[in-house]
């Protein structure tokens, strides 16, 4: 089933053989341009090398493990899923609960918001259908867009998509990272609608951005000077964050009635604190490799599980199974195991089959079960979709 992902995501025959994998081995040894002819080969190699990390790359014109034998210039990436990588460290300037590689349930909302905004845009604006969101295992999420159209996008197109989705501009030196001008594009409006749903609880309560003095100053540095002075005064009499926010919004409404510039500051604040931060370089590279779903994160032991969007609001990164948990669960004795064994040992020819079946059933006993089920549904949807394409192309529709 794992084999299905990198190959079902495309229709052509030799795709699996031309798919690049990379392994990170013990002592941080990184090997690229791995490729395999069959699922069996991949499994055997995985068992042999015991990689800490497995990444998936593009489908190339030739087998990646033979790329050195190919005439220079002809070895090229033909197809690759469009991917996005959202990393919590990129939000360090706007979250006060954690920093760097840490995450907690408070700042996890940022991932929820990111997923909602990007998922909507990729589906409704760009027309993509097959999106797989995956928890990276530590501090972020990845998105794999597996539509055929997405896989065939050029570098320029990927970069354009990523920039369309980017609203946060500027690094450490930039104070004001979001600036909105008239007219406000429908994409921004839709994104704002999502942000507004989460903002009161996430920003005002959990992050308390209008509570502590440094936070307040930071927020106020994002409003025009004249408004800032007024708010600073008003805040002396008003301490409740929700009421303070209302004051900010009222000021914005006032400004929007008169000014032609700098009048959308309340929206800009919400976006700066909540809007997804993407790494454009990850998305635009066709040669870039991304962590494989279901692989183990070397630093936390957590499995990179797919996220079911229907249960997005209750997704808990800390409840994601770790490899040790899975091993533990697998080691637990199963009910009726002895019976099975004796039956099967009667027929040695079936031994190999039985081992296969046992392997496949094993994961169902672990916490991984529901994630695998969700993943299966995703793959089914894709298979149905390309079957439909084939039928349509052959004129049967």
């Amino acid at each position, binding site marked *: 089933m794992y084999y299905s992902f990198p190959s079902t995501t495309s229709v052509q025959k030799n795709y699996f053989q031309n798919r690049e994998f990379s392994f990170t081995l013990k002592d941080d040894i990184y090997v690229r341009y791995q490729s395999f002819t069959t699922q069996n080969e991949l499994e055997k190699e995985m068992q042999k090398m015991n990689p800490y990390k497995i990444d998936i790359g593009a489908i190339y014109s030739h087998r990646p493990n033979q790329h050195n034998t190919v005439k220079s210039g002809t070895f090229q990436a033909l197809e690759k899923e469009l991917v996005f990588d959202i990393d919590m460290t990129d939000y360090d300037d706007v979250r006060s609960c954690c920093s760097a590689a840490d995450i907690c349930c408070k700042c996890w909302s940022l991932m929820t918001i990111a997923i909602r905004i990007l998922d909507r845009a990729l589906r*409704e*604006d*760009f*027309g*993509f259908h097959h999106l797989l969101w995956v928890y990276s295992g530590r501090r972020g999420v990845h998105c794999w867009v597996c539509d055929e*159209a997405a896989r065939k*996008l*050029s570098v*320029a*197109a990927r*970069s*354009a*998509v990523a*920039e*369309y989705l980017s609203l946060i501009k500027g690094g450490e030196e930039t104070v004001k990272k979001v600036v909105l001008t*008239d*007219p*406000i*594009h*429908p*994409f921004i*409006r839709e994104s704002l609608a999502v942000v507004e749903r989460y903002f009161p609880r996430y920003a005002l309560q959990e992050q308390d951005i209008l509570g502590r003095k440094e936070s307040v100053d930071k927020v106020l540095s994002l409003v025009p000077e004249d408004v800032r002075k007024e708010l600073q005064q008003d805040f002396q009499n008003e301490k409740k964050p929700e009421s303070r926010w209302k004051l900010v919004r009222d000021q914005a409404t006032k400004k929007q009635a008169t000014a032609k510039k700098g009048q959308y500051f309340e929206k800009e604040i919400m976006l700066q604190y909540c809007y997804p931060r993407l790494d454009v370089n990850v998305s635009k590279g066709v040669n870039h490799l991304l962590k494989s779903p279901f692989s183990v994160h070397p630093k936390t032991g957590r499995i990179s599980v797919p996220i079911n969007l229907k249960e997005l609001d209750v997704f808990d990164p800390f409840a994601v199974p770790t490899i040790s948990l899975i091993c533990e669960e697998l080691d637990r004795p199963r009910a009726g195991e002895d019976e099975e064994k004796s039956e099967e040992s009667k027929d040695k020819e079936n031994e190999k089959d039985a081992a296969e079946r046992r392997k496949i059933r094993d994961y169902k006993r672990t916490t991984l079960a529901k994630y695998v089920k969700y993943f299966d549904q995703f793959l089914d949807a894709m298979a149905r979709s390309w079957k439909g394409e084939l039928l349509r192309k052959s004129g049967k529709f």
Partner: protein
Amino acid sequence: MIKNINILDLFLPSGTMQFMSRQKKLLPNSHTELYGQCLQFYGQPPLENIALSEFETFAVERLKLLKTVENLGVSYVKLSEQYTKKLDQESKNLNFPYRSGPSEIEKRRKDHISHFILRLAYCQTEDLRRWFIQQEVDLFRYRFSYLSSKQKLEFLHKNNLQYDAISVEEKKALQDKLVNSSYAVSGITVEDQDFYKVPFQDALDLVRTRKVYLKAGYVYIPHQDIVTIILNDFRTRLSKALALTARSLPAVHSDERLQPLLNHLSHAYQIDSLSGKSFPLCMRQLHQALRENHHLRHGGRMQYGLFLKGIGLSLEQALQFWRSEFIRGKVDADKFDKAYAYSIRHMFGKEGKRTDYTPYSCMKVILSNPPSQGDHHGCPFRHSDPELLKQKLQFYKVSPSGISQILELVKGMHYQLACQKYFELTHNVSDITFSLNHPNQYFVESQKVLGGGKDIKREMDTPQRSQENSGRGSAAAREAAANASQHLAEMTEELDSFFQDA
């Protein structure tokens, strides 16, 4: 000599039977179908045999048309009334299509064939490609503007650009979103113009900057912007095609009838364009005289020939250049080889005492060998009659105030300063830091200002050289460039000491 050429053969790399059969399936049944509209994307090369004479005429006439396109584009706002009127006229004179109409089939055939011939000539270097693409895009834009809305849609569909106009109802439903997606789109735009649905991959710039409404993978674009997209599409297609053609050039080079014609077409153009942009007035004048009269006398040949050597022309290129020009005049190939080739080789130090002569400095041009009747060499600021100089500057589009400034300097005998002023005016800069004392220096500085930065000498390499011995070719060019600058340095020193002693 075989009189007919099969153009398709020139465009197919050898051994592409697959491509051939695919092509045949797409072949339209008649000229009427292929040439149904007055313009096309030139997707397929012409499949017929044409006479060698037609080959040459078509190519030359299209070149004239494209040069007109270039000139008009400089003098008038593109698609303005004067622009289109003049281009109409030129198209008519040269017998090219410019409007929809049933009697246009022959002209469209010529248009089709001539485009492909010029591709052969202009695919060879970056510079040539850029020029060719620019003029073809402008020509396309002008012709596209003549189509009606319906014809435009037909054209798009025929060329697999699945751009559909959305219905009035859909426009109304999306009105707010359309207006809010783009600063340039107002309620009026939505009412007045057709909006097209375009796959987002074809409008990346608009998507990247979020200047357009995007829904389900399609952007919604008003008619005014569709043209930009189509032009970009045309430009991209042509650019790719030229790159491919360049790679299959060996087929062309092996055809002896075509080789000289194509070389002449492209080299002549290239030097023409350089002469307008980066040559000092003295060399521009010499170049023009050579092109008009197909001849230059000894003084002119020396001054201009050495200058060309200084900008990187190799001996082979020089021989080709002068020969192709002279045989258009009264000199036949044999006479050229006997009489003139020797002196060109002499210039390059390949004959006689083998001095590798250096290009003349301004001092030398101004002070020695003044031109007489029938000569075109010398320094125009020194040797031309002021009235004549004024006319010349007007013809080269220097502003009246600029002309007076130059004439003032000439009156004061500051010939080099006058030339510097000419440089400033033609390049639109006002703060040059160099002190002009050599025509090749003028050229180098000009290329710098124009943001060239690329190796002009390398550009002028013919493809044979680049394919066979590029190493040698560019080494020779680099040598020439090094020579030029070394001599520049020497000249400057000489001049300094000259003035110090005096």
